[in-house]
C-alpha cells in the first residue's frame, strides 16, 4: 500500500530543483539590482546623478531667450579637513552656453592626500540636462601637504532643458580617498615632487 502511494506521488526532486534555481536566481537578482539601478538612474535622472564622463559641446544653438540659475554647493564628508569651495556661488547661464567655474581646494594637513568629489544635482530631473565638458570630479584629486589648487569645471545646459527648471543646484561632496587612491593618482603625487 505504501508503495502504491509512493508511485502515485510526483517527483519531489523536480520541484526542489526548480525552487533552488529560483533561490539562486533571486540571489543573483539582488546583485543585478546594482547595475540595473545605475542604468535606471542614468536614463531617468533619478537621484540627481550626473554623467560620469565628459560630453563634447557639439550643439550649435544657444537659447538666449531664457536664463537658468545654476548654484554650487560643496561639502566635506566625514574625515577630510580640506578647504573646498566654488569660486562663485551661482551663475546665470543661457541653455547651450558653455561656462567654466573654478573650485578652490586646499590641503591644510601635513600629509599628502587624495580626494574624490561626488556630484549630485537637485532637482533630480535637471541632472539629465547638465553636461560637463570637463570636470575635476571625473578623477581623483591628489594634493600635497599644505598645497592649494584651482580645479576647473566646464559645463553647459542642454537647450532641451524643460522650461519649468529655472534654478538647479550642483552639489559636490568631497571624500578622502587617500587609502584607496589609484596608482595613476599616486604617480601624479610623486612626479610633482
Amino acid at each position, binding site marked *: 500500500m505504501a508503495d502504491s502511494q509512493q508511485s502515485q506521488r510526483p517527483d519531489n526532486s523536480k520541484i526542489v530543483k526548480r525552487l533552488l534555481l529560483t533561490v539562486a536566481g533571486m540571489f543573483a537578482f539582488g546583485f543585478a539590482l546594482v547595475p540595473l539601478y545605475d542604468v535606471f538612474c542614468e536614463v*531617468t535622472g533619478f537621484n540627481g546623478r550626473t554623467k560620469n564622463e565628459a560630453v563634447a559641446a557639439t550643439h550649435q544653438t544657444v537659447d538666449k531667450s531664457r536664463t537658468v540659475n545654476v548654484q554650487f554647493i560643496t561639502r566635506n564628508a566625514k574625515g577630510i579637513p580640506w578647504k573646498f569651495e566654488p569660486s562663485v556661488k551661482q551663475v546665470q547661464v543661457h541653455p547651450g552656453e558653455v561656462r567654466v567655474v573654478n573650485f578652490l581646494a586646499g590641503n591644510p594637513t601635513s600629509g599628502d592626500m587624495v580626494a574624490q568629489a561626488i556630484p549630485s544635482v537637485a532637482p533630480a530631473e535637471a541632472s539629465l540636462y547638465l553636461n560637463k565638458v570637463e570636470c575635476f570630479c571625473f578623477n581623483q584629486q591628489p594634493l600635497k601637504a599644505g598645497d592649494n589648487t584651482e580645479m576647473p569645471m566646464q559645463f553647459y545646459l542642454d537647450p532641451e532643458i524643460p522650461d519649468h527648471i529655472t534654478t538647479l543646484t550642483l552639489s559636490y561632496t568631497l571624500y578622502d580617498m587617500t587609502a584607496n587612491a589609484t596608482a595613476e593618482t599616486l604617480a601624479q603625487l610623486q612626479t610633482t615632487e
Partner: protein
Amino acid sequence: MSTVVDDIHHEEHHDHKPSGITRWLFTTNHKDIGSLYLWFSLIMFFIGGAMAMVIRAELFQPGLQLVEPNFFNQMTTVHGLIMVFGAVMPAFTGLANWMIPMMIGAPDMALPRMNNWSFWILPFGFAILLSSLFLEGGGPNFGWTFYAPLSTTYSNDSTALFVFSMHILGISSIMGAINVIVTIMNMRAPGMNYMKMPLFVWTWLITAFLLIAVMPVLAGAVTMVLTDKYFGTSFFDAAGGGDPVMFQHIFWFFGHPEVYIMILPSFGIISAIIPAFTRKQLFGYASMVYATASIAILSFLVWAHHMFTTGMPVFAELFFMYCTMLIAVPTGVKVFNWVATMWRGAMTFETPMLFALAFVILFTIGGFSGLMLAITPVDFQYHDTYFVVAHFHYVLVTGAVFSIMAAAYYWLPKWTGHMYDETLAKLHFWTSLISVNVLFFPMHFAGLAGMPRRIPDYSIQFADVNQITSIGGFAFGLSQLIFLWLCIKCVRGGEKAAAKPWEGAEGLEWTVPSPAPYHTFEKPPKVE
C-alpha cells in the same frame, strides 16, 4: 507498513519514538519539529519582549535614566530582529509544520530531513546574533533595517556576526518555504484539489513563494554590507561610486514582501477560526484565495513607500502611493468576508474566537494608519515618528501575534490532547487586549505631535503619553506570562480533549484523535 491503517488504535502502537534529547535533535517528524519551532518562537518572543521592556523603561521619563543611548539603539535593533525573524516567522513555520500535513491529509512534510536541518540551524543563528550584544562596543545598533552607511561606515565589528546570523536565518526560512511548497504540491490526499485546501494552507503556499523570492535578496543585501565594510567594495559608498539610497531600494524590495510574509498566514488562521465559532461556511472562499494572491503580487510594487522622503521624483511618489492604496482593496475584501461570515451566525466566544475578533478590528486599525502613511504628502510629517511605530505594531502585534495566539488556543487541544484552562485564557485575552491598546494607541498621538522613533530621550511635552505607553507595555509584557503558564499547564494535563473539541470546526485535522498520534494519515484520507 501496517495493513490495518484504518484502525486508529493500531496507529498508536506505532508511536515509538526515540526518547530523551535525541528525539528532538534527530527528529524528522513534522509534529515534533512544529513543536520545536513553536517553543523556540515563544522563547524568542520573551527575549525580544524583555528588550522592549528595557526600551519602555528608558522612555518612561524624559532624559536618560537607565541605559546608554548606544545600548538603547542595540535594544531597538535586536528587539526588531528577534521579533521578526525569531518570534513571528518561526511561529508561522511551526504552525505550518504541525497543521499543513494534517490539513491536506499527508503523512508528513515532503522533505523531513531538511525540515530537521531548517529548524536546528535557527538556535545557532540567534546565538550568534545575541552573543554580539556582549562584544566590546556592543551589538548591532543601526535598526533592524540596517541602513547603509549606519551598518557599513559607522558600525562596529559586531556587524559581521549580524550578517552571518542573517544568512543562517535566511537559509532556514528558505528551506522551510521549499518544504511547504513541495508538501502542498505533492502530498495532498487524493481529492484534495487546490480549491478545496483550507485557507491556512493556501495563504502559507503564497507566503512560501514570497519567502523564496525575497529572502535571497536579503541575503544579497547583507552580503553587500559585509563586503562594503570588510572587503573594500562600494555598493553603498558614494565615494567609490555607490549609492546609499540604493541600499534602501534593495532592502525594501525584500522588506515589503517580508511584512506580508508576516501577515498572510494570519489571514489563513482567522479564516479557519471565524467559521468554526460562527458555525457557518467561510463567506467567499475563492475571493479569499484571489485576494491573498493579489496582495502578494502587489507587495512587489510598493517598496518605495518606505522611502518617500529620500527625494524621489513626483511621478515615482505618485506611482508608489497609488499602488500602496490599491492593496486596501484585496485587504478590504478579506475583512468584508470575515464580517459577512459572522453575519447571522450562531456565534460563541471561546478564546480563539476572541483573539480572532480582536484581530479583525485591531488589524484593520493598523491597516487604516497604513493608508494614512501611504499618502505621500502627509508621510513627510509621519515619517520616522511614533506614528509609524504605532502602525506596524498594530499590524504585527494585534495582527500577526494575536493571530498566532488565536491559532495556539484553537489547536492546543489537538496538539496536547488537553483542553486549556478557559478562565486563564480569558484572563490572558482581556489583559492583553486592554494593555496592548494602552501600549500602542497613544503612540499615534505622540507620532502626530512629532516624537521621533529610535531616540532614547524626548522633549518634555511627550512625558505623559510615554508614561501611559510604558505602563501599557509593562502590563502587556506581564500578561504574556499568563500565556506561558497556560501552555505549560495545558501540556502537562487538563480536561481530556475530544477529537473535535470545537462544535463548528471543519477540516481533516479534527478527524484524527486528540492528541494527534505521532503518525497521522499514513493512509491518505478520503476527501469529499
